[in-house]
């Protein structure tokens, strides 16, 4: 492979990382807003949040990407830059998965903690901020780490829309060289390295957060994808 082709691959890596960071930020925000809304007092808030989760978890990420690219522009009369369209589709979809993690972790906090907050006449917002979240967040890290890997794999989907990410650059090189084995092996390896680095840093984060609430991290994070039907354990 020539250096010109490697430059294409590096551009692809950069696009993939941008997309990953932006959609991870959006997905985190959505996860917390929707996940906390599902514990709200009012049934209508819980219902709307649950409805959002079912709809966005129910559909396929790739269908959602097509929808954002092709249906939103004529419907609303404006068009997003591909990077933002990809971010929106991935962030909303994976945020729905993440909201289940947030809900599950909040529900797993010892009920006595919440009751203690009530007894000390904390407001609901203070209880969430000072009591529930600091204990729930460290528990969320291992499932969020798995979800982040799923999101990384999901970013490859935007190449179908012609966005120049890592998977797309593989296609360019394949067409240029008329040979696929080498470039696709490299691309898979690059994805694997990114995934490895992400897993590692998430494990470090977990350790730090758990030390903050006086808990030692478990030896090995469960390495399974977030289960769907039933709540996240």
């Amino acid at each position, binding site marked *: 492979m020539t250096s010109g082709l490697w430059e294409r691959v590096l551009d692809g890596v950069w696009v993939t990382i941008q997309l990953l960071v932006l959609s991870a930020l959006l997905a985190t925000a959505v996860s917390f807003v929707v996940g906390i809304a599902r514990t709200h007092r009012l049934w209508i808030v819980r219902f709307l949040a649950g409805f959002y989760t*079912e*709809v966005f*978890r*129910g*559909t*396929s*990420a*790739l*269908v*959602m990407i*097509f*929808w954002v690219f*092709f*249906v939103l522009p*004529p*419907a*609303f009369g404006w068009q997003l830059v591909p990077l933002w369209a990809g971010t929106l589709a991935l962030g909303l979809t994976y945020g729905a998965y993440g909201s289940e993690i947030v809900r599950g972790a909040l529900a797993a906090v010892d009920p006595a903690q919440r009751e203690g907050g009530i007894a000390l006449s904390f407001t609901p917002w203070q209880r969430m901020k000072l009591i529930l979240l600091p204990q729930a967040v460290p528990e969320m890290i291992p499932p969020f780490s798995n979800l982040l*890997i799923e999101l*990384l*794999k*999901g*970013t*490859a*989907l935007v*190449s*179908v829309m012609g966005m120049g990410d890592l*998977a797309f650059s*593989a*296609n360019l090189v*394949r067409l240029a060289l008329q*040979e*696929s*084995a080498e470039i*696709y*092996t490299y*691309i*898979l390896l690059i*994805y*694997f390295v990114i*995934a*490895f680095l992400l*897993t590692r840093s998430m494990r470090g984060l977990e350790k730090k957060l758990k030390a903050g609430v006086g808990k030692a991290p478990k030896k090995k994070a469960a*390495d*399974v*994808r977030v*289960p*769907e*039907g*039933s709540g996240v354990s």
Partner: protein
Amino acid sequence: MTWDWGAVADFMPYFWDGLWVTLQILVFGSLISFVLGLVWALLMRTPTRWVTWPVGAVTEFIRNTPLLVQLFFLFYVLPEWGITFSAMTTGVFAIGLHYSTYTMQVYRAGIEAVPVGQWEAATALNLPLRRTWTVVILPQAVRRVVPALGNYVISMLKDTPLLMAITVLEMLGQARLFAQQNFQFTEPLTVIGVAFIVISYLASLALRALERRLVH
């Protein structure tokens, strides 16, 4: 926003074709992932690390890289090595292989959850290894993991549109073809989006019912 029911009506015949292909991918992909996953899980229990290390490394690699790129890999590279399959066969194999690296974890958990006493009883009864696995351990392990396997079938349903990228005309492929020929994107894409939500919601209800029956 303009919504044209005529376009929906025109799209429906293609939609049913696509749905049929999607369900075929799902059924065969699931079967492959169930069988291969069990094979990986059993290989990981062999005592020698000459087996467990390569199997662990390969499955870890497959699990952490995008299915889309794996599809392209198989679709473009296998023919270079002189192996040609139809796009559909390649796609079904790729999706089954990808998900087998997840189901393997499920089986592992199920096997580990079988009480030690069952192993000891099998030893006490002098059952050969083969029969210990086939009549004692696996029936109990598999029963435990059915709900978790079901969750992966639902996940797989939502990954079937990826096969569109290697020219398989499943639901999304049909929708895109229809959209490009008629310049009507909104209707076919919305129809299949709703179809995915409905199918996966029904599947999760069915799964919850199955879960309840297995528990009791």
